[in-house]
């Protein structure tokens, strides 16, 4: 099952089939979520209208963690089982995760200023999320730092796996230490502490961000597969010219 989709040619066909659905779902979910979040949902009894920032802040933070878990998982598969697709998926995930982390930080700051009274504090939650952002940047920098893509992938995969210890720290920081950041409202004992009129747009936006991730991920993985092909073709052509082989010969493995 797993191996079937690990074949790049099969994956490309699957990606082409799934991508329009992911795109459509993103647009529909986003439109519904935005209407509910920005217009139809009430103001909060304490935060007033600023509660609307939550509808983009919390899903961004969820995706920041989700993407990092996916990144670490893909890196583990790439390191242990050497699946070529896992490495490409990791490389394609990192910029999306970094973007979500950046958005969680910025939107949180825009909420914190009027509500807490500060743009930023160095409490355990905010600091650990900033560390997550730097882990993404470090992963991407290391991934591109080597001339040999194989070595870059190995070094960056190890960094991604080491950085995974930060994920539980982020999740439980609000429970383990006292922080300025509030504890989780949705995942908690005794059910969510959010009124349904606010929980619905929040979950819709969460779903929309997830399908957005799938959508852009597929585009980026397709690009990575093609880039790998290009690299292989260029190397073959360079080798072919050196050996004066016929340049017009179809590249083996590319023809079907």
């Amino acid at each position, binding site marked *: 099952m797993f191996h079937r989709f690990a074949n790049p*040619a099969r994956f490309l066909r699957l990606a082409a089939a799934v991508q329009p659905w992911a795109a459509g779902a993103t647009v529909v979910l986003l439109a519904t979520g935005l209407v509910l979040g*920005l217009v139809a949902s009430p*103001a909060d009894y304490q935060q*007033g*209208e*600023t509660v*609307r*920032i939550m509808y*983009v*802040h919390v899903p*961004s933070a969820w995706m920041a963690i989700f993407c990092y878990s996916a990144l670490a998982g893909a890196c583990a598969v790439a390191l242990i089982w050497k699946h070529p697709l896992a490495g490409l998926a990791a490389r394609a995930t990192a*910029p*999306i995760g970094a*973007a979500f982390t*950046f*958005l969680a930080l*910025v*939107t949180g700051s*825009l*909420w914190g*200023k*009027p509500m807490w009274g500060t743009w930023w504090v160095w409490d355990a939650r905010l600091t650990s999320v900033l560390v997550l952002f730097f882990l993404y940047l470090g992963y991407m920098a290391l991934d591109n730092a080597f001339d040999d893509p194989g070595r870059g992938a190995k070094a960056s995969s190890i960094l991604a796996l080491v950085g995974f210890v930060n994920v539980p720290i982020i999740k439980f920081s609000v429970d383990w230490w006292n922080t300025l950041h509030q504890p989780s409202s949705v995942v908690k004992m005794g059910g969510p502490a959010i009124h349904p009129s606010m929980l619905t747009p929040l979950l819709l936006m969460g779903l929309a961000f997830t399908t*957005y991730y799938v*959508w*852009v991920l597929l*585009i*980026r993985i*397709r*690009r990575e597969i*093609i*880039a790998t*092909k*290009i690299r292989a*073709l*260029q190397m073959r*052509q360079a080798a072919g010219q050196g050996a004066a082989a016929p340049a017009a010969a*179809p*590249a083996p493995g*590319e*023809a*079907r």
Partner: protein
Amino acid sequence: MDALTSYFYMDGYAGFIWPAYAIVTAVLVGLWMISRRSLRDAERTLDTLSPPEDRQ
């Protein structure tokens, strides 16, 4: 018209809420456009390297 103005005023929090949504929109749309262009460029490069009938 007045209702619309007061809606955008967001009870005085317009300066925080709208920038938050603007940044999210800019980053998500931007990342999508960069990813798509990058895929298109790669596809074009592949076409110049090998005739299309050789692929797939």
